[in-house]
């Protein structure tokens, strides 16, 4: 197609409309959803496809679904060929390999018809708070050795038939999850959101006609590919490598090697290869290739300043590889429930490699996060509760400025307010504060770690912990110092017990779980830090006088 055939004004208008549909789909989903992950954590994603299952627009939500979204419709169509689909149908799946790497992420894919003709698809994914399996939240790492222990697996099923939700399928799902009201609410929210997006997409075809929209789609895919190639071609040609380690994959296990080799060909192509990493592990923390791809793509977009709208075209110049059977490309039934803990680490690893190519874009490693689930039977209601929590702390030092304090790292979540947690669950949060002296020293300091103490007000509960950086601290760059290590403590009366970052622990009333996140890495040598900045940090309590003396020769 030559550009002359298609008016740039029309294509602009069509593109903006697609983006606005994808955005609106997400807004509706967030506002109607039940689970904390969706409504507070924005742990969902939306996309629009053409009739050949090519992704032409994606909503600006969780990057974790960047990897799965482009292929999800193709996967669905391999089970339901287009001619078997009717208006009002919708397909549901949550398979780890087909979807975004663990069962809690459910995808709903709705075919869109215009004048009785299939013209495309709208899709959304959402993190369900529970999909059954070994522990509340379906993210238990320790002792889960195959995916069958992780809960209900849905290969693509026709969840909605001609507008009616299949109550049989729904009953099967709700019979297998711990918090059926929430899962039901979220599944309906996904459907609700798809419905209005499908109506708008169909209207686009009313307004412009099939031919024009199709040509606009080609234009969009080509142009986003060209823009990505241009961005990638600006990175100095070469191979850049970096290795780091995950604490372990459960109590008493070995560290997992995370290694990446990134090759820019100087012509607008890039290959990101994780093959040198460890083998897949017998614990629920493996990263299916869709998940690996998602965060690798995210990192590339961040580093290459590729802020243009995400389409399948933009992904063509990027190859993401990992050895089959490795930690970053396992095969079913490798367990993967807790893979969310890897997202920051995938970014950190790529950041380490690209700091050699693009030093001004690099940053110290993130202070990481914790994502524990605490669940049990609420003494007051005799019903299951699952407290899904996120603690998010600082960024690494960046070229020219300190890492921000307590800002959502790679994935983009809001935290869950203390007052919301306490009004829903039998717990009390005793503190939420930045940890003095935890940020890595540097010319530009890493952000502080964060402490959150949660007291159990229920007779019993179980913790499925999901965290990291308890053994290998967030690194600094260009002589910046590493952040302080994370630790998790169980305080029972006068006793303190250090907990592993991925363990399961029985809790009793009065127990206090103290989550203390690592500090982020610094950027540049500490002796080049601005004296006023050190003074400000001391005044505001981010660092102590002793640490200032030690790290910066402060006097």
């Amino acid at each position, binding site marked *: 197609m030559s550009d002359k055939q298609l008016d740039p004004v029309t294509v602009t208008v069509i593109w903006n*409309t697609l983006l606005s549909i994808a955005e609106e789909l997400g807004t509706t989903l967030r506002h109607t959803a039940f689970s904390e992950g969706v409504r507070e954590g924005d742990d969902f994603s939306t996309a629009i496809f053409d009739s050949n299952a090519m992704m032409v627009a994606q909503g600006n939500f969780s990057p974790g679904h960047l990897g799965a979204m482009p292929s999800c419709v193709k996967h669905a169509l391999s089970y339901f060929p287009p001619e078997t689909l009717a208006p009002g149908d919708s397909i549901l799946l949550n398979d780890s390999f087909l979807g975004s790497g663990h069962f809690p992420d459910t995808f709903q894919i709705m075919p869109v018809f215009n004048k009785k003709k299939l013209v495309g698809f709208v899709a959304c994914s959402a993190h369900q708070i529970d999909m059954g399996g070994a522990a509340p939240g379906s993210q238990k790492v320790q002792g889960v050795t195959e995916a069958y222990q992780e809960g209900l697996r849905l290969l693509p099923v026709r969840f909605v038939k001609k507008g009616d939700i299949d109550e049989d399928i729904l009953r099967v799902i709700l019979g297998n999850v711990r918090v059926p009201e929430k899962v039901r609410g979220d599944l309906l929210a996904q459907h609700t959101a798809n419905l209005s997006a499908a109506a708008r997409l169909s209207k686009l075809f009313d307004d412009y006609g099939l031919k024009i929209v199709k040509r606009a789609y080609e234009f969009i895919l080509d142009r986003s590919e060209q823009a990505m190639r241009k961005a990638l071609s600006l990175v100095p040609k070469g191979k850049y490598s970096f290795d780091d380690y995950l604490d372990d994959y459960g109590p008493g296990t070995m560290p997992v090697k995370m290694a990446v080799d990134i090759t820019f060909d100087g012509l607008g192509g890039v290959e990101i290869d994780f093959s040198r990493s460890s083998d897949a592990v017998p614990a629920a923390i493996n990263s299916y290739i869709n998940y690996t791809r998602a965060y690798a793509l995210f990192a590339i977009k961040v580093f290459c300043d590729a802020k243009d709208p995400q389409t399948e075209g933009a992904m063509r110049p990027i190859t993401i590889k990992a050895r089959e059977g490795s930690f970053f490309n396992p095969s079913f039934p490798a367990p993967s429930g807790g893979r969310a803990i890897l997202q920051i680490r995938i970014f950190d690893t790529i950041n380490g490699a690209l700091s050699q190519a693009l030093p001004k874009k690099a940053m110290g490693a993130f202070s990481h996060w914790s994502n524990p689930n605490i669940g049990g039977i609420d003494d007051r209601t005799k019903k299951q509760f699952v407290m899904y929590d996120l603690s998010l702390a600082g960024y690494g030092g960046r070229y020219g400025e300190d890492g921000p304090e307590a800002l959502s790292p790679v994935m983009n979540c809001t935290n869950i307010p203390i007052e919301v947690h306490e009004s829903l669950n039998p717990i009390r949060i005793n503190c939420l504060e930045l940890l003095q002296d935890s940020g890595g020293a540097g010319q530009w300091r890493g952000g502080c770690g964060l402490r959150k103490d949660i007291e159990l007000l229920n007779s019993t509960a179980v913790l499925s912990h999901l965290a990291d950086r308890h053994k290998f601290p967030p690194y600094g760059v260009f002589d910046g110092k590493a952040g302080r290590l994370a630790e998790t403590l169980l305080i029972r009366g006068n006793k303190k017990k250090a907990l592993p970052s991925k363990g399961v622990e029985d809790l009793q009333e009065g127990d206090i779980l103290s989550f203390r996140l690592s500090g982020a890495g610094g950027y540049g040598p500490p002796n080049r830090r601005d004296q006023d900045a050190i003074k400000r940090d001391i005044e505001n309590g981010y660092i102590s006088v002793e640490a200032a003396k030690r790290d910066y020769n402060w006097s």
Partner: protein
Amino acid sequence: MIRLAFDIGGTFTDFVLQDYKTQKSYFLKISSTPSNPEMAVLSGLNQLIKKAKMTLADVDAILHATTIATNAVLERKGASTALITTKGFRDVLIIGRQKRYETYDLYINKPRPLVERKNIFEVLERTDYDGSISTPLDTASVDEAVKKIIELNVASVAISLIHSYANPSHEDVIRDTILRRAPQLSVSVSSEISPKLREYERTNTAVANAYVQPILDRYIARLESALAKKGFKNDLFIMQSNGGLVSPKIARHYPIRVVESGPAAGVLMGGVVGERVGEKHIITFDMGGTTAKLGAVDNGRPAISPTFEIGHVQFKKGSGLPINVPSVELIEIGAGGGSIASVNMGIISIGPESAGANPGPICYGLGGKHPTVTDANVILGYISPDGFNSGKIKLDVERARLEMETQIAKPLNLSLERAAWGVHAVATKNMENALRIVSIERGRDPRKYSMVAFGGAGPLHASRLAKEIGIPKVIIPFAAGLGSAIGLLEAQPKIDMSTTELVNIKGFAYSRIAEIFDELEQRIKKDLDRLGVKGDCEVIRQASMRYVGQGFEIPVDLPSGYIGPSYNSLIKSAFENAYLKKHKFLDADAEIEGLDWTLIATITNNIDSHNNNDHNTAHFASLNDQRSRPVWFPEMDDFIDTRTIDRRALPVDKILTGPALVEDADCTTLVLPNDTVRKHKLGHLIIEIHPDKLSEGRK
């Protein structure tokens, strides 16, 4: 009855004086004096009063909207402020809600909190979610914190403790302690200012109140005394973000409530103008130099949202400071006359960067280098090349054409006119997406709404926008550039009170709800006393509600009248109506709960309900004097000679068919081919949009 209104904006201060007896209005627009806002106010008042041949003593009420509080926050020039919070939670304000406003940008920063960490102090205490006290307030820790704060020499203190919305007793004790020890300090208490769930938003609201209080307090005091010196003896009212007026006393106590007073007045004006011409459902569209703002009036009432943000970065949601104060519902996007157009990936993008007022668009000839929406409008003939402000500003059309050609037309292989049209159309499309949110996404059927368009650029883009989304009627108010000030004239005193309590709508819910509204009524009575206005008091109940398990609520108007056992089902059906309108889906099996409960009291009947303008008393040129100029229309893909008429010359109720341009001193109204325009007897233009959707640009 004589009412006088003024609206202090960033660039201009607008004045309106209305004499309800003689039915005469007087208008004035002068430059603002940001460092000393009352200077422009006093000089403007003098001029206006002189023009009307009156004295201030003749004026019955003065109504005021101001951006002083907003600017103090935006520029971080508020009072030095300290915060007292619960032990363990010093960092709630610094941590915030943590989401990046831009997912794919890791180089951004969070909005800077209004209080530095070193000025945040903890006291030992703990209240639980149900209001019970699990750790009593340790007075020694209060004394210690207060001592430190006094040493700091701050002007203002905010108090925000965990779960204080459920039980304010500890906050009250701390306030009393501070006022005893340091009566000179301003104290803002979170349970009083924003008694709502979610600690960060509540704390930030209390802190923002504290931060602007000393400044607004001094300003209002200065203004009151200056007005008194000039002989003004009657009531001064301040506009709140919710579109209602309050007394200076209340504004000084809750300054955070007046932050959005200018935009609120704009929406209010839209509602009033609509009502005058017989329309109750209105979308307001205010397009100025840097932004476009869209609001709504439903059944005569401005739509209100329970929260808003101050200090957005590029209008992105979540990039500002959240404020828990009811405010007119507005969507603001970076599409104004000064928004810069560029070519990216073979398509046209507009804004959010703006050339602002300086250097401004290229055609202003003040050094602007990038083509803007205004430049496109000049090239297309929509704006007269003779310039505006009665010819005081001449336009450099050639320069605009040259840059549009090199920067937009050439890279896209388009003719100059189609490139300029592209800029105009894309800007309109961006606004259409925002308009979709305001209308369709929020359950408003565009076919049942009329658009009131104002601001320097609004009347140019309004018809195209209305046509695209299916709004059948556009109203361009008389003195469209003075919209906000005119809105003030019509505002009513209004107080709202709300509280948070989770109530599941079943069983004896109704009796708890009755108690909640009783308590709110008691609190509202106190403020009404402070307001000291006579008149009929209309009270409305509202709640934010959701299905049990959801995390976002929708606003629901609750039935008035006695609250008895049947109230549960009344609430349920009110919720279902609102939910269905918004989401087009109901869950018959789910339980329903209410979270925030609000009571709104509006005082009515204290002004005359109709007015007239003096627009047609002057001597006007006749229609025969009309001129014409070439104007580009995509429908014809060419320039066509289009008549241009001075609005004053247009006879009342004569119907003209577009294309046509109707010109005012500071804005131009574009009437599209086949649409019709007529002038209402009050001077407003009423454009009927031709039902056939045009297929411009889609050939």
